[in-house]
């Protein structure tokens, strides 16, 4: 340092991790929420733009997507918030065994959700090649599916990490808490998409 300095405080006693907006990662995650949220917003805007263009929504001879898989997915993903909240609490209490238990439950639920999501694609009653309606319906579901798969991958890695010696580091609990926050984002963004994919075509018809 080339400028003469005068010491005016010591930082050694500061903590090395914290939850929520005090943590740096939290801000990174929030920034990614904004990016992805903006992406979803534009996709939804495109949905309404195309809807205004189309004659009939869905266009004649196409049925709206069948409700079963999508509704099951919605119910299960809403229920998954229970173990998710428990994971978050356990992480904040640094209760490793509880973290293990609820993360495994959550991953099991994710597997169920993955199967439901795959099934959902087959129940859309339209292919993306059929018309612009089919294209945007598939795009919405596909966007959310990638979102879901990404977080699932994240969670698997994090869960694995929590079974290693790295779990001893307190900052890992912050990661777990932030992952739980991300999961909330995943299901929150799903709710409007669920309405757009499954219900708007029914109301518009």
């Amino acid at each position, binding site marked *: 340092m080339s400028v003469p300095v005068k010491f005016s405080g010591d930082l050694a006693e500061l903590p090395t991790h914290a939850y929520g907006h005090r943590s740096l990662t939290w801000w990174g995650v929030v920034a990614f929420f904004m990016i992805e949220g903006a992406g979803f917003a534009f996709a939804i805007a495109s949905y309404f733009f195309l809807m205004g263009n189309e004659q009939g929504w869905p266009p004649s001879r196409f049925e709206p997507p069948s409700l079963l898989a999508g509704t099951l997915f919605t119910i299960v993903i809403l229920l998954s918030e229970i173990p998710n909240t428990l994971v978050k609490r356990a992480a904040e209490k640094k209760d490793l065994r509880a973290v293990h238990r609820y993360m495994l439950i959550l991953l099991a639920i994710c597997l169920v959700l993955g199967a439901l999501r795959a099934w959902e694609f087959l129940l859309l009653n*339209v*292919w993306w*090649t*059929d*018309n612009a309606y089919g294209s945007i319906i598939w795009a919405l579901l596909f966007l959310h599916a990638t979102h879901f798969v990404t977080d699932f991958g994240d969670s698997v890695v994090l869960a694995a990490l929590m079974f290693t010696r790295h779990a001893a580091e307190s900052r890992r609990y912050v990661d777990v808490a932030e992952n739980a926050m991300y999961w909330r984002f995943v299901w929150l963004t799903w709710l409007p998409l669920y309405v757009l994919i499954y219900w708007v075509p029914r109301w518009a018809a």
Partner: protein
Amino acid sequence: MSSRSPNKLARIGLAGAALLALGACDREERDTSRQPKPETISLASSDPRAKEYENSSFHISQGQRYYSWMNCSGCHALAGGGGMGPPLSDDEWRYGGRMEDIVQTILKGRPNGMPAFEGRITEQQAWQLAAFVRSLSAQPRQDVLPGRSDDISNAEPQTLEERRPQQSESNTTLPSAEKD
């Protein structure tokens, strides 16, 4: 110094990619030249022009326009499913499925209703049309084909099947209509 090396890396990458992907050039060439290269149609087993036209996205897209302009789609349908004329999207070629056979069919016509376009379109256009016709049955390299046309959706509805795989092209079958 960090600032110089990316430049070097870029140059290495550029050269490497250039070597690897030289094949891209013929696919992309907008060949607006006057006429097909050799002067006459040879009936030899493989006309050198066949590959040239078939592997050119430009020629295929020109052929796609002519397919609509010359009313091919009226008989053979947008994706080659057929109608008044036989389907072009399947593996059955009444008069041979090689490029040069198709060019012959277009130019000279065929007895069961295919009109002769010789004198109505140029030979170059016939080759371009043939390249597009072959693409309907997914014959040329997939990477030169467009995903769809700006038309009514002509993808098979409600199914995820890909276009049927093709049989060997020498498999020429006789016209099925001549049963009497």
